[in-house]
């Protein structure tokens, strides 16, 4: 009787399903990845224990930078075919007697936060690159004589009635400016809004010993 030989097979693994899966996941992650739009100024938000995430759409953001400059951003709503940003800008234009061309409106739709007087908007939109645009960001005027932020907030609310507001301030921004921003929101009838924060490292807040309930 001859020995039974065990056939030696080459260790071949069919990798096709694995590769398929990899590519599927890869495509999924590429498509869902949201890239941060160019921000007008670096803002380091303070920390809090709140765990509520920021809304995805229908959000108007007022940014306050470290140097107390004010920026504004409004999104295109849930559906970009509504062209909310373009509508808001043309309303601002007619308010300050500036005529924006369709090309400029289109350009504005693709940009993110901005902080400059309405008078400079045309030059801003026609700026050749990001560097030139950045140099123009001097903050939106918020004085009582020329409160342009109030106008932006009002028009944004007119064209997107579901708009929620968030204030994204730098931890080092000073109170007088924050107070003005809050007054703008109150004046335009926004009594409920969000303060953007980062999650504190230790999530649970510490309590004095006698208040810990077991």
């Amino acid at each position, binding site marked *: 009787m001859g020995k039974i030989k065990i056939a030696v097979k080459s260790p071949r693994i069919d990798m096709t399903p694995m590769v398929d899966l990899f590519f599927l996941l890869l495509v999924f992650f590429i498509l869902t990845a949201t890239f941060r739009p160019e921000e007008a100024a670096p803002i380091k938000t303070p920390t809090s224990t*709140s765990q509520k*995430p920021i809304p995805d759409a229908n959000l108007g953001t007022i940014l306050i930078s470290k140097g107390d400059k004010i920026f504004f951003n409004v999104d295109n709503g849930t559906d970009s075919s509504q062209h909310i940003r373009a509508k808001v800008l043309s309303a601002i234009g007619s308010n300050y007697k500036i005529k924006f061309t369709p090309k400029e409106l289109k350009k504005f739709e693709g940009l993110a936060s901005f902080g400059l007087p309405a008078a400079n908007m045309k030059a801003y939109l026609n700026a050749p690159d990001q560097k030139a645009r950045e140099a123009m960001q001097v903050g939106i005027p918020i004085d009582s004589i020329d409160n342009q932020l109030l106008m932006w907030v009002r028009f944004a609310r007119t064209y997107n009635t579901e708009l929620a507001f968030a204030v994204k301030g730098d931890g080092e921004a*000073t109170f007088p400016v924050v*107070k003005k921003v809050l007054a703008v929101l109150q004046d335009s009838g926004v009594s409920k809004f969000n*303060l953007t924060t980062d999650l504190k490292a230790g999530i649970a*807040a510490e309590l004095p010993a006698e208040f810990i309930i077991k």
Partner: protein
Amino acid sequence: MAEIVQEESHKGKGKRKAKKHGTHIDMTPMVDLACLLLTFFMLTTAFNKPKVMEVIMPDKPKDNEKPPELDKDRALNIILVENDKVLWYVGIAEPGKTILKEANYTKEGIRRVLLERNKQLFTNITKMNKDLIDGKLKLPRDSVEGRIKRFYKADKTGPIVLIKAADGVKYRNIVDIIDEMAITNIARYSLVDINPVEKMMVQTQLGSKPPVTAIK
């Protein structure tokens, strides 16, 4: 990783066949790259969306409308001042009589003050949360918030916190104090303007130097 192509050895004198190339393509580099990109996108998509803290401000009072009266024993006034310090007093400010107490943002600072005054409400809510976690209390998820709101409404003893800020306060301080309100479950609080009496009191308390306003 991929496969080991075993070369067949030719034995004997048989015809030398032209070596047939299989249609195998070595996929290893492609898989490596796909894997790398996958990892990259998985890590960068990071779901670390910024968090928000909801703030509800009272509507702007109309000109002919009087602000609602509030129980002065429940009124807890918190004045934020420079250098991350907090001053507080209870009731209505009377020059020369009211003493401002100093605190900070640590757990033994303003948090203790707030908790001592808000003990009942805080205990109620913490107990409920604990019962929910232990399974003693079963509630649909969406009614938890409603129940907390009912607790807030029923609260008759907790403090009514008036948050005021002197010049020179940073935005960070405001976020901190609102966060304290959330931690200690304060039912009623509001951001209000500082009045001249309090301004004076703060000045005397901190040494009579005028408030420094940052000029940029």
